[in-house]
Structures are given as C-alpha cells and as structure tokens.
C-alpha cells in the first residue's frame, strides 16, 4: 500500500506503546454486532498502469470538445484554457493546502483570493466579492436567500429566461422556507417585459432575479429594470452564466444590480462534465454582512506588515450556526485561483479582445442563420434559432461531421421544441461555422 508509510515493525512498536496486541483492538469501541466481518466487496488494488488504462479507455467512449467543434453552451462554455493555469494550480502549495485557517502559513492562498475578490469586484462593478461559492446555480440560490434577508420580503420575482437548471436549484433551496417564486413575463424581443416587472413588484415581492445574457442569449436592459426595482425598494440580482460577457458588456453593478451571482467556468476552468465550476458572488458594500461564504480581508501583522486573513466570520456557520447567512464551508478555492490566474493572464486588454472575438464570431454565424432567429434582442455569444427540422435530428447530422450542435430547447420548454440555443466561442473557426450553417439548413 504505497500511500501508507508504517513498516510492520513500526506498527508493532506503536501497538506496544498502546498496550495492544493487534490493530483490531483499536476498534473495540464499535459494538461487535455492527462490525463488518467480511472484506469489502471492492476489487483488489489496481496498479498505476491499470488505473491509467482504465480511465484512458473510458475517455475514448466520450465525445469531447477537444476533438469536436462545440456549439453547445448554456451554462458551460468551451473556452481556451491558457497553459499557465495548470502549471500554477499543479503546485502542491496551492492544491494540497486547505482553507487558510492559520493565516501566517497561508498567505499565498489568502493573497491570491484577495486579488480574486478584487477582480470580481472590478468585473461586476460591485463593491465586494466573496471567496467563491459552488457554482452559478447555487450562487443564484444563495443570492435569492440573501435578497430576502435584506428586503424582508419572501416573494421573489424570477425571470422566465433564467437557466432552467438554476431555476430548479433555486426551487430546491427555497422549497421549505415559505418563499413564493413568481415568474416575470418575456417580451417578444427576448428581454424581460418591463411592465410586467412594474406590475408584479411591491410590498410582498422585493427580490428580482434576472439573468443577462439570459438563457436564450439575449442581453437584458439591466438599467431599465434596476430603476423599477430601486423605486420599489427591492433588490436586483443579476445571474451571469457566461462570465466572459463581463469583459465587454457594461458591468451589472454600474447599471444598478445589487447582487451579481454567476458561473465563473468560462475563466480558465475546463468543461469537466459540469464541475468543479466556480460560483461568483458580489454585492454592494452595504450588504456585506449579509453575504454568504468566506471573505478575505487586508490587515497588518504585529510588526505592521501587510497581511491577509479570513474576516467577517461571524456571518458563517462555524460561529453563528443555525443563524448563519449560509451553510457553506468548503467552497471552490482552487477554481477561484484558476479564475484569478486566467484573468491576470488575459488582463485589461486581453479579456476584452477575447470577449470581442466571441461576440464577432457569434454575429458572423448569426448572419448565416439570419432567417432563423427567434429573438431580436441584443446578444453576446449565444442566440436562439428556429430549426428547419427537429433540433435533435440536426444535432445527429452535425455529430456525423464531428460537430457538437446547440442545445435543443424542447427538454425545457415544450412550446420551443423546434428551437435550439447556439453558442460560438473563440474555439470554433469560420470554416466550422460555415459547415454548421450548411448542415443546419439541410
């Protein structure tokens, strides 16, 4: 057993110190009736070669975005991951440490999170960001809980174009808390109908959750919606599934959002079959003591040198227990580091350039599919098209040419069974888009 360092001799010496004849006696506090008397039905140990071969074989049974052009997005985006990221997160100093409970020997993790928090603040246009949550969906659910705490109103208005899986997670989180979820209306251009918001917001409904760009790819008019929410004394939560859009579009905080909850996967985290991803969370300064999750703050040591610590901990479960702002403990630390390295790599200019490439390419494909557009609203790198035949059938034909097609919407919206959401990242080429359009049109 190569992961254990004791020799049989040392084992015996240690048992002698304990006055025990066998290791089995260490477990005498477990009643005999519940002891396992047979070996576990788990195969015997595999060698390193066997384990590698086992997984390599399984990998060949997948259709990966590495070897196929990918037009599938909807909350998970096939962006390029710069080489430096894996190089940095493969350092044991980062990936084999834990939550920085002892700040004196965790300054590396703490400073990197402080930088991460700063970059998320800069991108979202909000004052403070936390150290991460699990993923975009649970971050959105946590934002809903926080908005309800802040407004004291338990009815939440939800955009119909919030990612359906996020909606499902939100429902799971609030189902026993006597919340009401009410749906807003969508206008024909794919944006939220402002009048419906005005009509529904009020003394009971104070929290509003929208997504922008929304599930259909359409960029919402956040400023207009924020005005309505503000006038009603509510809290506006903007969910973001395609974080790269923050590199080019107006920051939600500047437009009046109070909380941004999002998915940070686009920032250097591989598709990874859905996880681990990264829950982004930022809010206005006045709400910081209602925030879920860990936060790093700057301070000084006993000799006046700058250092960083986990702070505002009284919000958290280990101190406030049942009254905590969230139950979260372990978060997605290493993914936050991946995100930070990605953002520092692309930087002030590169992030915008990358976002522009996505926008321009997506608009190129749109020009090829102009007759099929479902919504007229503005979009970033995803848009919805009506298909000339069943979206599933189109995807099958695309797959035959090594292309992963868009997301058929029938699974989520019966009335949209003829539509799919198509995503274009910098990873697909013009030739592949031409090919996509040709096959799409039949």
């Amino acid at each position: 057993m190569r992961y254990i360092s004791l020799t049989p001799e040392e084992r015996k010496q240690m048992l002698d110190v304990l006055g025990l004849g066998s290791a089995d006696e260490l477990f005498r506090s477990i009643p005999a009736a519940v002891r396992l008397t047979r070996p576990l039905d788990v195969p015997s140990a595999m060698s390193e070669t066997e384990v590698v071969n086992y997984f390599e074989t399984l990998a060949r049974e997948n259709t990966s975005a590495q070897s196929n052009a990918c037009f599938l997005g909807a909350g998970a985006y096939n962006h390029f991951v710069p080489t430096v990221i894996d190089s940095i997160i493969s350092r044991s100093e980062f990936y084999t440490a834990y939550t920085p409970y002892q700040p004196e020997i965790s300054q590396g993790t703490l400073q990197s999170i402080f930088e991460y928090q700063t970059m998320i603040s800069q991108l979202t246009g909000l004052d403070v960001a936390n150290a991460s949550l699990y993923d975009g969906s649970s971050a959105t659910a946590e934002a809903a809980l926080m908005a309800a705490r802040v407004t004291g109103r338990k009815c939440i208005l939800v955009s119909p174009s919030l990612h359906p899986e996020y909606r499902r997670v939100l429902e799971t989180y609030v189902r026993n808390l006597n919340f009401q979820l009410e749906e807003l209306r969508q206008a024909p251009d794919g944006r939220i109908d402002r009048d419906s918001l005005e009509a529904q917001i009020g003394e009971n409904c104070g929290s509003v959750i929208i997504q922008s760009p929304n599930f259909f790819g359409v960029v919402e008019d956040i400023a207009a919606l924020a005005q309505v929410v503000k006038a009603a004394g509510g809290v506006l939560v903007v969910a973001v599934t395609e974080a790269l859009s923050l590199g080019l579009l107006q920051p939600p905080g500047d437009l009046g959002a109070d909380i941004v909850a999002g998915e940070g996967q686009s920032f250097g985290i591989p598709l990874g079959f859905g996880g681990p991803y990264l829950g982004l969370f930022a809010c206005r300064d006045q709400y910081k003591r209602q925030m879920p999750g860990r936060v790093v703050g700057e301070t000084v040591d006993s000799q006046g040198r700058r250092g960083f610590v986990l702070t505002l901990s009284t919000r958290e479960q280990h101190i406030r227990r049942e009254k905590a702002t969230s139950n979260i403990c372990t978060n997605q630390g290493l993914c936050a580091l991946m995100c930070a390295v990605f953002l520092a790599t692309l930087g002030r200019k590169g992030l915008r350039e990358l976002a522009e490439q996505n926008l321009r390419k997506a608009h190129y494909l749109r020009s090829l599919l102009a007759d099929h557009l479902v919504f007229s609203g503005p979009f970033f790198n995803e848009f919805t098209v009506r298909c000339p035949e069943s979206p599933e059938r189109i995807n099958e034909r695309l797959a035959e040419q090594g292309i992963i097609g868009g997301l058929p919407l029938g699974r989520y919206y019966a009335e949209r069974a003829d539509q799919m959401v198509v995503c274009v990242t910098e990873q697909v080429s013009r030739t592949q888009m031409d090919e996509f359009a040709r096959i799409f049109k039949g």
Partner: protein
Amino acid sequence: MNIPEQLFYTREHEWISVKDEVGTVGITDHAQKELGDVVYVELPESGSAIAAEEAFGSVESVKAVSEIYAPASGRVVEVNTVLADSPEILNQDPYGKGWIIRMHLDDTTELHTLMSAQDYQRYLAEEVGE
C-alpha cells in the same frame, strides 16, 4: 469588575438606567470583557418597538456574536450611531459613551424584575464564577 450602583441589570448582561420613563441600555463590563474586542454592533432602527427579553441587536467580536436583549418593553427613541464607526467604545466605556440605545419604556414597573448592582455581583459570582 465595574458594576455601577445606580443601574439595573439583566441575566444576559445588559444594563439599563432610567430617567423620566426613558431608559438608556448598554452591555456590562463583564459582557464586553467576555466578548473581547468588539468589531461590529448591529443596531435597531430608531422608532422600532422592542419587547422585554427579546433580542433587538447584536454585538460581534472577531470570533463570537452576542445578542443584545431588551431589559424592558418599549420604543427605541435614540440609537448610539457612533458605535457604527467606532465599536471599540463598547470596550472602552461600556457604561458611558458605549451606551447602545435609549428607549421609551411602556411600563417602568417592569424594572422590578431586573437585578440591582448587588444582585448582579452575586449573580456573576454564583452563575458565572466571577
């Protein structure tokens, strides 16, 4: 341990002094010492109604939160907003500049259920081991 004579005390370590139906409320010297350095005080809104023995705010140190319970029922008439920016005053002067709220009492006879300075001293000795 500083326990001023003229005040009334609760078992949760709040004090109250009363003048013309208006009570001034804070936490005791013992409470601030137990908490350690206060970093944040959550204050109620002026004008809000509070009920005896119910929490109306909280005091936080780095690693602990302590709720502040109302010694009597009434309405908050003034809040010590200085605490928002300088919570350390609670440690430095718990019975003076570190007062937390002023409240209009519904019924001053409620104060009879509270402890005198002597009672509180005995309470600390017996219950808390001071």
